């Protein structure tokens, strides 16, 4: 397996001088194509900050991130947005759906942005919504869906563009255990059936048990790595 993402010596500092906070202190990270990696750690360990560096939502103070063959540290804001659109998928802990758009329209957004026609985007969006078990909910507004359903639509939006890497930032944090498990099962299925590379931040070990690997962070450093399955 080849590494689809390779981060080297990642540092992230906030503030300056006496107020400086050193959140990531030189992390090396890599994930292979098709791998499902969980990043775990206590609150303040730096797991979300690491994910933001890996997913190019943030720029590391030091270090490099290589996604595929692309070194993204020199990207402009516009390039980053375009790269995220075409290469990465995101699942946020608060679902992050646009409240004014229907479920289908939320999923269509990145497809339309990629230049799909309305009809193509709608057809693809409906297929993906069906695949996450939300058949017939195309026209529902987010407010008309439960938390678990919203998160599944969020997953559908993230995978609709067939991203190389899917990032999930505590996707179960706002869900009850049943809904949380459904979302985890969905992600596991994506990984096992379609070989989707997934990097997930979670603080609940039970949800990380379906992953290939768990990386444990503590105080901005990788302290332990668990390989659960090949």
């Amino acid at each position, binding site marked *: 397996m080849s590494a689809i993402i390779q981060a080297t010596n990642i540092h992230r500092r906030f503030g300056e001088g006496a107020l400086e906070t050193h959140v990531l202190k030189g992390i090396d990270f890599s994930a292979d194509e098709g791998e499902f990696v969980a990043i775990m750690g206590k609150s303040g360990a730096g797991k979300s900050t690491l994910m933001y560096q890996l997913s190019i939502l943030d720029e590391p103070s030091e270090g490099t991130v290589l996604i595929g063959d692309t070194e993204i540290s020199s990207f402009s804001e516009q390039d980053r*947005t375009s790269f995220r659109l075409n290469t990465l998928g995101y699942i946020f802990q608060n679902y992050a759906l646009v409240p*004014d758009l229907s479920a289908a329209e939320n999923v269509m957004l*990145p497809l339309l942005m*990629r230049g799909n026609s309305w009809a193509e985007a709608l057809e693809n969006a409906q297929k993906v919504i069906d695949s996450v078990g939300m058949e017939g909910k195309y026209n529902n507004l987010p407010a008309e869906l439960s938390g678990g359903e919203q998160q599944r639509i969020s997953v559908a939006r993230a995978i609709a563009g067939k991203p190389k890497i899917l990032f999930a930032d505590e996707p179960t944090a706002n869900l009850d255990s049943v809904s949380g498990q459904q979302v985890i099962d969905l992600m596991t299925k994506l990984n096992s059936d379609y070989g989707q590379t997934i990097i997930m931040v979670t603080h609940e070990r039970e949800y990380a048990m379906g992953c290939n690997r768990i990386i444990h962070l503590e105080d901005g450093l990788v302290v332990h790595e668990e390989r659960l399955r090949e």
Partner: protein
Amino acid sequence: MHILRIGLLLGWRQIQRANKWTTLLIISVMMLTFLNLIAVSGILVGLITGAEIAVREEALGDLILSEKSGEDHILETETIRRELAAYPEIQAYSVRFNGGGVLEANYKERRNLAAERDTASVQVTGIDPALEDSMSNLSTYIIDGEYLDPNEEGYILIGYYYLEEFAQQFGDIFDTVSGVSAGDTVRLTVGNVSKEFKVKGIVQSKVDQVSLNTYIPEREFRRLFGRLDRNADQIVIHMNENGSETELKNIFIENGFDDFAKIQTYDEGKPKFITDIKNTFNTLGTFIGSIGIVVASITIFIIIFINAISRRQQIGILKGIGIDRRAIEIAYVLQAAVYALIGSGLGALLTYGFLIGYFEANPIKFPFSDGILVAPPEETFIRFVVLFAVTLIAGFLPAWLIVKQNTLNSILGRK
């Protein structure tokens, strides 16, 4: 193209799902701004336009013939008068003789020869009562007494500005006689010639040329003023509804009328101060309207800013998932555009569908004019374009300010 499409989708859905009362409030603000922009200057200009229409209707008509430069009167007036009957585009006309005289009242009751005489220097106009009435509807402005009878002699109409009882409301600016009403006897002196007239009626109009005038029959005027050549000072003409004064002027010139008289359309002959005041009021209205635009643009800015800042996290997420920032900005510009369009549309509907007609039927009564609402469509369109452009900028700026913020900071709600 897809950026525009996504922007329109996001913007349109936001409008659709927005709180209806908030939307109504914003549209009301835009409509009132539009009305402020159109109606304030429209009423200010309408004051003058009302006066202008009155001067045209009651005094000068559509086409004015007056003495040529270097001449005292219109030459060959009788020939011109005969010719006018042959022009079907003329609805009515009046031949006027003008001069100045001294009007004296209460002289019969005057016992003390040392006391000041009750006199006023007046403008005297000799008219054919029937022609003048068909031209200016002068008889409808009689507030006391009756209009001149073409078959009678020895009667005079007096404009109410010459009567102290009426004129004192304007201060001491007019030369007046006192206590005169219809049926009284007055004396008109021109040079060394005096003649007694019975006051047939008092004329009240908002047009100075009418209210600051006295009217006597043309025959008596000529005798009193020694104008035996019958050459008049002014011929005013009203056109038929479909007639064009410019075309008639050209025909008059082709037919040699300009050898005898200066020919002017109303626009050429109207007093310059009317145009000057109109332009001044228009500028004033635009200035007041501009303040309205500034207020509206600030309102739109605040509304869009609050809207955008309350959706800051959502904007961050949209950027996070790869939506181009321009699409997000378009969404907010679209909202501002829709508010401006609907507000202006309603304002235009109200203006052209109701207000203009209402003020025509119920003009605002001012001392010098019956004010109407004037809103030429081309000027309205220009003002709308200005309002629309300013609104778009007011919609874009706050969106731009929020969208340009760091994506992750927006997502996490960090400053």
